[in-house]
Structures are given as structure tokens and as C-alpha cells.
């Protein structure tokens, strides 16, 4: 494959519940630490789920050249700016004089911003007409104009983080934002790779950012019964693949990577951290809530990615190992996902499935929704660097039918050079990436 078709990672950054830089995140993941605690952004004490994995003690202002430029940034933009700075610096892009900014683009999977719930609720109360059993829209409008902040409302548009990043770095090339729920940032990285391969850009800032740790986010997911309600044992609430798993735990944050063609990276002396060798994308097209019972969508995404990477899922290498050494699972800790993902892995890898370690770092970080894929991608690159894979924590009561090697509880040093990362979204989008150690 020529150098223009090979896509490498040259920088990474993260803002997460377990660290605001790669080293801190990694050491916490390997130690099996938990970022989940009582929600303190608002009083969630009476909600079915009272806990989440919040980003703590984070001030985005140290990550931008001029904070005033990002005066109105909401949480999503703030997280993304911090992660993007780390990635930009690691990729040494700041040192590039005269880099043609029209050849630099952005592709994020960023979520909707956070509503100002207090003022929204007050606006509704002020304008509710009891007799009519409805909002009086004239009174609502007058109250909303008074109570809601214009910039706060504008900042909720999902393309805002991408626009903030573009502004910070003077980016003028292709800029996209996608919002395929939990698959979004994996999809963003995959599509960014395609844009590079086509020559529509030379550098892409890719990844995701999201928080749904707010009143309506918690409400919405609790109404769907998607969240764990293990309020009496918060630290073990996220227990992917466990028999007693009862739903996912909300997390928040951002993961950003810098992607380039290998040709571009080498020609400017950048050091490739890893290579993206495969990307697959599919839709379940089944139901709005349930996954297809044969997990056909996730299996298809994995098969596409493996095919692009030239990997036969049923083959073994000379030492008798499958060609994929680690699967970073979507692994949300919902009853359905973990079962379906296991089924999909078996459908794809067949007799090799039980030979491939599979773990879910959502056991420690919670579910970063649109940002999950990017952070999990970063964890794969770190695993390749450190030759150790992070565990699935809280796996003390396995379910008999879920019989893969989920790397229970302890990180595991192994030789690895090829990872597969899955993200499956509410709404049926499925995306998979294959990440490999860089070799010439």
C-alpha cells in the first residue's frame, strides 16, 4: 500500500473522569481505578441513578491561547479544547511554520450541549396555563428571552466543539460533526481516515466530546431504563459482561487524535504512534430500541473493518494466535449490548473468539456517549505502546453464556500489535476500527 493510503496517529489527548492527560488516564486504567461517584453537578439524590463519572477539577482555559476567544464554550467544547491541545502538541503541529491550514480539517463526533435546565424549568413554570393544560407561547417567549442566555443556547449546537477547535488552530479544511450517539467518535475517526485517503486533507483532528450528565440526560436514559441503578454499590455499578450487570453508567469527556497520511507524517518528521488499518460501518435497520437478535449489524461492521485490514478472523499466526490480539469492546454493561456484542464477536471470529482478550474500559470510565469511541481508541494505542491491556473491572460474577476472555479485574501484560475497537450506537449505527502498531 502506498504511503498516501496508510493512515497514522501522530498525536492524542484526553479529558476524562480518570485523568486529563494520557499518562494519568493510562495509569488509572491499568490500576483498575473507578471514575464513578455520586453526581454533584446537580442533586440527583432521588433519581433512579444517582451516580456518574464526571470530569473533575478541569479548567479548559490553560489549554487555549486566548480564553476570551472561547468565552462562551460549554462543557463539550471545553473538554474538546483540552484534548485537542494535548494532541496538537504531541503531534508537534505548532512547530510547523506555514502549514497550509486549508489542508487541515476536523471530524468530530460531538454531542448536543447542555440545556440551562434551571432557567428552562422556571420559564415553563412562569408560562404554564393551568386552565389550558399547556404552555402559553407568548408568555413563554417573554420569559425565555429574559431567563435564557443567548450564547448558552447557541453553544448547544453539536457543531460547536468543531468550530471552537477550528478557531483555535486556524483550521480551514473540511470540518464535519456527526452525532450517531454512542458510535459517533469511532465513526468520526473512520471517516476522517477516508478523507485523508482521498487527499481532501493532509491532517485531520478527529475524535469526540460529550456530556449527558445533566437533568434531562439522566432523565432520558433513566426513562429508557438504560442506566445502572446500583446506588448502594456505585464503584462496582459498571460491570460489563457480568451476570448482574444492570445498565450503563454515564460518563463525560473528550478524546482527540491527530491523523495524517503516513507520507505526510514522515515528510515532516512526525512520529507515528499507531496506524489505522481498518474501518467498518453498518446500520442494524432493525428496531429503534432493540439490537438485532443475531447481532448482524455489529458483526458486519467488524467484518468490514477486518477485510479492509486484510485480516482473516479465522486465521492463526505462526505461534497459533489469532491475528487480532485485543478487542476494546463497546461493553456498556447493559444486559443487551454485552450479550449481543459477545454473539457478534463469536459470529465473526468463530473458534478464535475465546482466544482473543476482550475488555471494556467503560467498567472504569463509564460511558462517554459520543466521546466513548475516541477515548477507547486512545486506550488501544496506549495498550500497543505499553504492551499491556486494561481490564474489565467488577467482573466477579460471570454469566455462563458470556464465556469470552474479558480480562477480568487485572490488567494483563501481553505482546500485542493489533487491536479492534467497537462502538455501537442507540439508533443502530455500528462502527469498528482496527488499530495496529506502526511499522515501516
Amino acid at each position, binding site marked *: 500500500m502506498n504511503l498516501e493510503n496508510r493512515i497514522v496517529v501522530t498525536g492524542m489527548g484526553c479529558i476524562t473522569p480518570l485523568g486529563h492527560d494520557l499518562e494519568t488516564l493510562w495509569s488509572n486504567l491499568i490500576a483498575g481505578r473507578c471514575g464513578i461517584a455520586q453526581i454533584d453537578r446537580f442533586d440527583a439524590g432521588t433519581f433512579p441513578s444517582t451516580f456518574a463519572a464526571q470530569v473533575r477539577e478541569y479548567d479548559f482555559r490553560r489549554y487555549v491561547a486566548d480564553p476570551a476567544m472561547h468565552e462562551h464554550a460549554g462543557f463539550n467544547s471545553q473538554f474538546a479544547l483540552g484534548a485537542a491541545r494535548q494532541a496538537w502538541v504531541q503531534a508537534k503541529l505548532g512547530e510547523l511554520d506555514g502549514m497550509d491550514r*486549508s489542508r487541515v480539517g476536523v471530524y468530530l463526533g460531538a454531542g448536543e450541549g447542555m440545556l440551562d435546565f434551571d432557567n428552562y424549568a422556571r420559564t415553563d413554570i412562569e408560562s404554564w396555563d393551568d386552565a389550558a393544560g399547556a404552555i402559553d407561547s407568548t408568555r413563554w417567549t417573554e420569559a425565555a428571552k429574559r431567563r435564557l442566555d443567548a450564547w448558552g443556547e447557541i453553544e448547544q449546537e453539536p457543531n460547536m466543539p468543531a468550530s471552537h477547535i477550528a478557531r483555535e488552530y486556524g483550521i480551514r479544511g473540511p470540518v464535519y460533526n456527526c*452525532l450517531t450517539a454512542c458510535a459517533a467518535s469511532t465513526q468520526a475517526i473512520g471517516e476522517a481516515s477516508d478523507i485523508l485517503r482521498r487527499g481532501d486533507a493532509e491532517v485531520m483532528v478527529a475524535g469526540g466530546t460529550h456530556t449527558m450528565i445533566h437533568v434531562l440526560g439522566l432523565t432520558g436514559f433513566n426513562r429508557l431504563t438504560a442506566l445502572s441503578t446500583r446506588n448502594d454499590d456505585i464503584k462496582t455499578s459498571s460491570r460489563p459482561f457480568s451476570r448482574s450487570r444492570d445498565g450503563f453508567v454515564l460518563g463525560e469527556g473528550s478524546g482527540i487524535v491527530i491523523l495524517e497520511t503516513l507520507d505526510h507524517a514522515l515528510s515532516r518528521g512526525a512520529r507515528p504512534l499507531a496506524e489505522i488499518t481498518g474501518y467498518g460501518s453498518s446500520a442494524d435497520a432493525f428496531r429503534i430500541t432493540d439490537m438485532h437478535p443475531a447481532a*448482524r449489524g455489529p458483526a458486519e461492521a467488524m467484518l468490514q473493518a477486518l477485510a479492509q485490514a486484510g485480516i482473516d478472523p479465522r486465521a492463526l499466526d505462526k505461534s497459533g494466535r489469532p491475528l487480532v490480539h485485543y478487542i476494546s469492546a463497546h461493553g456498556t454493561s447493559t444486559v443487551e449490548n454485552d450479550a449481543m456484542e459477545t454473539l457478534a464477536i463469536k459470529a465473526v471470529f468463530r473458534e478464535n473468539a475465546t482466544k482473543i482478550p476482550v475488555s471494556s474500559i467503560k467498567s472504569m470510565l463509564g460511558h462517554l456517549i459520543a466521546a466513548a469511541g475516541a477515548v477507547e481508541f486512545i486506550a488501544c494505542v496506549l495498550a500497543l505502546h505499553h504492551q499491556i491491556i486494561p481490564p474489565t473491572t467488577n467482573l466477579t460474577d460471570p454469566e455462563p453464556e458470556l464465556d469470552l476472555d474479558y480480562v477480568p479485574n487485572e490488567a494483563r501484560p501481553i505482546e500485542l500489535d493489533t487491536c479492534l475497537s467497537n462502538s455501537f450506537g442507540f439508533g443502530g449505527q455500528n462502527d469498528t476500527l482496527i488499530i495496529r502498531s506502526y511499522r515501516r
Partner: protein
Amino acid sequence: MSCPAVITGLGPITAFGVGIDPLWSAMLAGRSAIKRIEAFDPGGFDCQIAAEMPPDLFNVKKVVPKSYRKATKVMCRDIELAVGAAAAAVEDAGLVTKASEGEAEPTIDPARFGCHIGAGLIASDINELAAALMTSRTDDGRFDLGHWGAHGMENLTPLWLLKYLPNMLACHVTIVHDCRGPSNTITCCEASSALSLGESMRVIERGAADACLSGGAEYKLNPMALLRQQFAGRLARTNGEEDPSKVVRPFDSRACGTVIGEGGGILVIESREVAERRGARPYAQVIGFAATQSHCPDTVGLSIPAADESLTNAVRLALDHAGLAPGDVDGLVPFGSSIPAIDAAEAHAIRTVFGDRAASLPLVTTIPNVGNCAAGNGAIGLSVAAKALREQRLPARLHTEDAEGLDANAGPARDADLKHMLILTTSQGGQNAAVVLKGL
């Protein structure tokens, strides 16, 4: 280009109805659907007019299989529009899908059928949410979050969140038509449809799909969404003073802001080879596409500078991609928002690229007719451009009287020799896209 992409079906949905025929008739006749908002009392807004679809023109229950009617209960209006548009596009393309009555095999293999539907920040229905919030109102008119968490939220339907997620437009469409290929939801405000088309084109060109349902839809006709547009300073002030149908006048010196419309569209984008094999008659080939990011001094891109290079670059790059010179373009569909600063930026880009020819290059504007449909806008422009190429006719143009250096003034429909059309857009957030179509 590995797999050239052609447009084989048009499915716009606007205040004039569903499908290309009602839109095209209205465009030829120079009709505007803009009038005083009826969906709610717009009295508190600076802009009290919009293009709304009369309720009797479209019923989503009639365009889905009987077995899917129950699912329409969890569709916000944006989703309904996308589902209606998809049905029209599929019919116009002569495709058999899972939604078709009868036993015929689907024309496109589901695994090779993609879906890229742009969407916006969807505001949840005010009354639906307020009715539930009111159950947690205290006697002295405050909101009791503790009560909400324990009891109040149970008054929200369990699937409430799924009604308003932007990716649910694509989710429902993929289920109805059994699209299991790559599916994405781009959320870049008014650039969403054009960026979606670009992605559909890339997906087909890289061989990952034979056909895609591509476009976008948005419904901002509720107080929250309209207020956000007012906060963003984009809306024309009307206060009921002028003939509402004359307020939108793109590129006119009296342009004073845009007006929202309800709508969007889906196009069927197909591999040329597949289209030819099944005997389809494509409207046009997508021969050029480019995406760029403008410099936004305000960071969030409420407007872009008049002399912005990136918008000009988008046009140039798309023409380069198409292998065309500016002189080869026969008609141009701009964003044409009637927002003065954005009109100025578009005018600058057009004059810069086309030079002296700009004064005689016909512009096709749609916002005076059907309003600014935000994430749905580009799909409307693309549909009209494709239809113009088929009919060799330019639609009438409305309202503008003193456009400088541009062929944008009001005038009747006329025959024209059209080989290549260029569709251009910018967006709130600064994302730009340009598409070049060649009539077939």
C-alpha cells in the same frame, strides 16, 4: 474516481408538499409559502413568519408500512419529515425497498444501501415536557428536582429521549427501507445536507455502498428553536409590517435576515454502474465536492467575514475536483439566506471565482419560496438543481431587486442551456460545502 455517484431520485419535503413535483411547480410559478406562523403564537418574536407545511399535505402514517405505524408515535417532526422525504425519493428513483408493497426483491442489496441524513439540534416539544415538569412544581411555583427524580419524570413517556436524538432520523429511515450499509448523521447546521451528500458520494466511491439515501431535515417551528435562531441574530425582523412573502430577498440591499422553513429532503445517490444496470435514468452525476471551514471571528460562526477565503476555496476546490473551469458552470444555487453578512460573503465568493461572469451567472434561490430549512436546506437546493438540469429550465426567482454584480434579481422561470450546476452553502458554525452536478 473509482465509482462515480449519480442522483437517481429526488425527495424534497417543504411547505409545498412532498416530492419534487409540488416543489418544482411552486418554484416555476414563483410562489412563496412564507406567512404568519400558525404552529404557535409567534407574538413574542421579532420574526413572526415562516414557511409551514399545511397539516393536510402530509401524514407520516401513510408513508410507512402498516407494521411501522406504531413507531410514528415516537417521531418528532424532524423524523417525520425525513421519513416522508425518503419515501418520495425512493419512489422517484423507482427503487423497490422493504417498504414497498408487494413481494418484489429490493433493488439495492440492504448491506450495500447506506443512509446519510443531516439533522439539527432538536428541541423537545415544549408542551410534552412542560406537562411532565409541572407535576414537580411546588405550591410556591418552584421546580422540585427531588420530586422530579422520584416521581415527576415518570410522566414522560419512556422513549421520550429517542424522539429527539438527531440520529433517529436516519435510524427510522434505515429501518423502513432496510438500509444496512454505512449510516451517519451530520450535524453542521445549514451545511448538514450538502456534507451528507459529500459523505454518501465518498462511501459509494470507496465501494462501501451501491446506493445511499442522502439529505437532511429540520423542524425549527417551535418556540425554543425559533428563539435560538433569534438569539443567533439570523432572523428578519417583521413585526407583521410587510407582506410576509416579500421579506426574504437574498443579495438585495434591503435584506434583513432569514426566515425559517419546515422541510428538507432526501436524494437517492447511486453508483453509476448500478444505476445503469437497473435501467434507471439519473438526473445528474455528482462530479465535484468540497468542504471547507471559514474563519469565524466570533468563534461560533454566527456570520463569516465578507472577504472570507474559505467559501471561495470551497467553490474552487469543487470545480477542480470536477475538472471544470468557472466558465463551465451554468447555474448556481447559493445558500441565499438573506442574512446580510452571509449574503455578502457568498457574493464575494461568487464574484471572486466567476469574475465578470458573475453578473450573468443565474442564481437559483429557494429560501424566499420555502424558507431556511436549516439542516434540510441543502437537500432542497440539490433537488432543485437536479430538476433544473433534467428540465433545462431555471425556476422563477423572488423578491430581490437590486443585487449588485450578481444575476439574483426577481424574474420569471425560463428555459436555459444547463450542463453543470454548482450548489454552495455556508452554515452557522462556519462549515462550508460546494457540490458540482453534471446533468445526464
